[in-house]
């Protein structure tokens, strides 16, 4: 089959590889129909997430048709059309029982690596480095899904791939980010990053009762998208005093909650970000947390900062004093996707939201390498790329 493989920093290639087969009794093989490229994939593309190996198959936002099931699979059969969550749950450990699927105890074969780095290991993830299990991803014609009984959402024929594909990651991620804010009716929520995750967090904030949502980015087309459904916007390139702006816009109090949908590769021309950028380039720093610094600084007293943006290592000049001094609540982590798939599918079916509004490009796998380059460098035109197969 054809697959998009990581060949090194800024190098994705289409390769012919073996088809996957069943390795464990709860596995299934899926013939992929649609698979998206995520902002998280750009962190791999840019080489800032460790433990990638040349030849790793990319992709964690995947859906398709079941073509084979292992002997112990119960809830899925050949021919089913399913969306696959990006985090792999076993369905049996305490964390899975508690619906904390991305904290699953049992699905990361390389649990020793995060145990050394983080103390304990989270779940395995598709296509997201060996630290997270080294599972082959879904930017390929076929994918093997472990514990498919836990890791699938059956989707009705009445909905298109584009409408349901993002239940694999970014819609649950945006939604969980907003839910973590404990929004009260009429609250003001500020969101750093108007990429697909940020945009879906903004929509979700409105769904959960926010009165105002303020989007912060520097990409005009993305800010336009945010404005199109009722957000106010701040372009950080035109306005550098973001904290002052937000204070002014919120009657001197600050937003009730702040969402960092940027993660470890923040852009911007602040002094601290310039230092972070140099440190990351010469590998004496791991993360560029400038959006997070701003979110903490801007948030109201006793407010919440919710962090769906991915971080990997040690954060420099992290304003912990501000977080403590204002009594902030910090919420973060990989999304427990399985927890949200069904209820969010219902919202799509009812017409409350159609997440396909984020898609800018639909391409074939052969155009994948160029799409990575464009999505990384040309965010004005490329908001979300979906690979179409079969």
């Amino acid at each position, binding site marked *: 089959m054809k697959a998009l493989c990581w060949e090194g920093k800024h190098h994705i290639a289409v390769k*012919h590889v073996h088809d996957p087969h069943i390795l464990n009794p709860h596995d299934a093989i899926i013939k992929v129909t649609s698979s998206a490229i995520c902002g998280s994939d750009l962190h791999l593309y840019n080489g800032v997430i460790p433990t990638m190996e040349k030849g790793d198959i990319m992709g964690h936002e995947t859906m398709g048709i079941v073509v084979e099931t292992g002997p112990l699979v119960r809830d899925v059969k050949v021919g089913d059309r399913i969306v696959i969550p990006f985090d792999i749950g076993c369905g049996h450990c305490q964390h899975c029982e508690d619906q904390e699927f991305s904290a699953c105890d049992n699905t990361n*074969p390389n649990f020793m690596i995060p145990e050394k780095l983080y103390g304990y290991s989270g779940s395995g993830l598709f296509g997201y480095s060996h630290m997270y299990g080294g599972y082959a991803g879904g930017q390929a014609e076929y994918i093997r899904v472990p514990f498919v009984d836990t890791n699938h959402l059956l989707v009705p024929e009445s909905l298109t791939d584009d409408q349901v594909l993002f239940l694999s990651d970014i819609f649950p991620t945006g939604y969980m980010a907003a839910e973590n804010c404990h929004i009260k009716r009429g609250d003001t929520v500020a969101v750093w990053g108007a990429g697909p995750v940020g945009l879906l967090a903004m929509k979700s904030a409105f769904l959960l009762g926010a009165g105002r949502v303020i989007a912060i980015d520097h990409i005009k087309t993305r800010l336009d998208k945010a404005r199109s459904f009722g957000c106010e916007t701040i372009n950080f390139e035109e306005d550098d005093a973001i904290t002052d702006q937000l204070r002014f816009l919120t009657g001197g109090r600050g937003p009730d909650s702040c969402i960092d949908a940027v993660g470890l590769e923040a852009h911007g021309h602040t002094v601290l970000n310039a230092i972070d950028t140099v440190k990351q380039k010469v590998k004496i720093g791991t993360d560029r947390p400038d959006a997070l610094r701003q979110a903490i600084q801007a948030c109201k007293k006793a407010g919440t900062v919710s962090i769906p943006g991915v971080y990997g290592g040690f954060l420099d000049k992290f304003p912990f004093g501000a977080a403590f001094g204002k009594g902030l609540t910090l919420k973060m982590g990989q999304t427990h996707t399985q927890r949200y798939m069904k209820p969010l599918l219902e919202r799509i079916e009812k017409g409350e939201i159609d997440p396909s509004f984020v898609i800018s490009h639909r391409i074939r796998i052969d155009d994948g390498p160029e799409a990575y380059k464009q999505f990384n460098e040309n965010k004005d035109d490329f908001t979300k790329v979906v690979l179409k197969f079969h």
Partner: protein
Amino acid sequence: MDTSYIPSSQSRQTPGVPQLDREHGYFASATVTNSLEDIVAFCKDQENVEKVLKDIPAKVENFLGLKLETDASEKDGHRIIWKNSGKNPGKLIFLLSPAMNKGTVITAEAVFDKIHFREDGPSTLMNIFLKRMKQLMETGEIATTKGQPSGREEISQHKH
């Protein structure tokens, strides 16, 4: 529970967490959702030890050839021993106790005459061993990616 195993100096132990004499072995502990009876049955099945050791990502000379002791799950069944009587005699002891809220705590100890490991320390290896045992116990399989496709083994277009 088999209290004779617990040194008297540590009699005021935390409930649910057996305190072992750390002088003479290597330890790891794990909490599993399985019931005590489940675990006893699991440990009585020699096939399970083979599965835990298969492709274990560390050298395990000490553990190879482990066999279930005939009088395993002695007394009330809360202590189980896997023994190696080959060229490197020793045993793994599993102590089972109900977890504070739910499930079972397994405390594992490795006792060998001569411990030699080619990679990692013995405690790391015990942890790896127990984590894999937990995977198999809770889910019926051990997570793997061995045999999956990758661009490292590119095949020619024509084979497809």
